[in-house]
């Protein structure tokens, strides 16, 4: 069964004016779709043909000779995860247990936001910034290109895509503005909370 491009979990206009329908048209309709299509082209006859997406990512991580499989599979996963990290009327401070976890790990939401923004802005070139769970500890990290926490023993909780294609039509060179807007208006904290195990 080839992989399929999952639909966006909201209308492509739902995050306007913070994230435009035009950007979704390319980001979801072209970039995400190309990763799915490329992966489907590579899989037939390979050792990974019958594996789940997460299994392909883990099986090919760190092996330069399998970069085609890894890059496309990881980018399929990262983008699907990213769409769910956003929601209309999102952003701001989380509530409940998650707020307490951020307080304990970072010393408050402001400190978390500062670290997350620094990771996103400081990721040189193309990549992602993440809030992850490593063993029982919350951490902010960034990964280059297609690299994903899933391949390094971490549980992804939240991500922002900082490939230029993620924000260039709406924000051009102003990556800090995009990341601030993501935090203030787009983060789907309910989704993040559901990613916390048990």
């Amino acid at each position, binding site marked *: 069964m080839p992989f399929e491009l999952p639909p966006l979990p909201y209308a492509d206009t739902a995050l306007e004016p913070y994230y435009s329908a035009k950007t979704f048209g*390319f980001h979801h309709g*072209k970039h995400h779709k190309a990763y799915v299509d490329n992966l489907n082209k590579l899989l037939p006859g390979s050792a990974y043909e019958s594996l789940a997406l997460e299994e392909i990512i883990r099986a090919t991580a760190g092996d330069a000779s399998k970069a085609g499989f890894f890059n496309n599979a990881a980018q399929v996963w990262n983008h699907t995860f990213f769409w769910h990290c956003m929601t209309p009327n999102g952003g701001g401070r989380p509530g409940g247990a998650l707020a307490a976890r951020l307080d304990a790990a970072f010393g408050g939401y402001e400190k978390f936001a500062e670290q997350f923004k620094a990771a996103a802005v400081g990721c040189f*070139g193309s990549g992602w910034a993440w809030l992850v769970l490593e063993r029982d500890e919350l951490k902010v990290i960034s990964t280059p*290109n297609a690299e994903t926490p899933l391949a390094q023993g971490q549980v992804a909780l939240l991500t922002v895509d900082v490939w*230029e*294609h993620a924000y260039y*039509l709406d924000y*051009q*060179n102003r990556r800090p503005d995009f990341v601030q807007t993501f935090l203030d208006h787009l983060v789907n904290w309910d989704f993040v909370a559901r990613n916390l195990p048990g």
Partner: protein
Amino acid sequence: MAHQLPSLPYDFGALEPYIDTATMQIHHGKHHQAYVTNLNKAIEGTPFADLAIEELLAKIDSVPENIRTAVRNNGGGHANHSLFWKLMAPNAGGQPTGELAAAIDSAFGGFEAFKEKFTAAATTRFGSGWAWLVVKPNGSLEVYSTANQDSPLMTGDTPILGIDVWEHAYYLKYQNRRPEYITNFYNVINWDQVAANYAQARK
């Protein structure tokens, strides 16, 4: 002497329709400017502040660790973009002539074969980076790509032609269609400048 943003050798709109005005304005005025500003911040007050950019990059391994990444990224960004602007011109394109053409023929088996190799390097660079035609220390030509703002100067090679394949180089006009941007880049290559770079590198 702090590093400075060089002026473009042509108007922002001079490379239309292949490279659009808005892209040139942001690419030169914002992205390149940021590399210059951040490079100067990183090396201010260090012995590396007085080096020419090429020399600084050639010595990247001896730059102190606490500023090495900043110098690599921003110094690379400054050198790469300074070279890149001069490699393009209005009413340019076509094919190289003279010694450079002969060297390309002998290294790659002809201009079309070179073009294929350069295009492949630019197309397949995953994420952000550059594709290059370089002169090796022994004088031979080679095509390869580098990640992010890494410069061939950091590994002892001399870049004589390069294409920026960071998405910021083409996204406003071409969006996800990097191959179309690369195809159109051949219409603005300033082969006279590449030939001059080649002659300089072989001195």
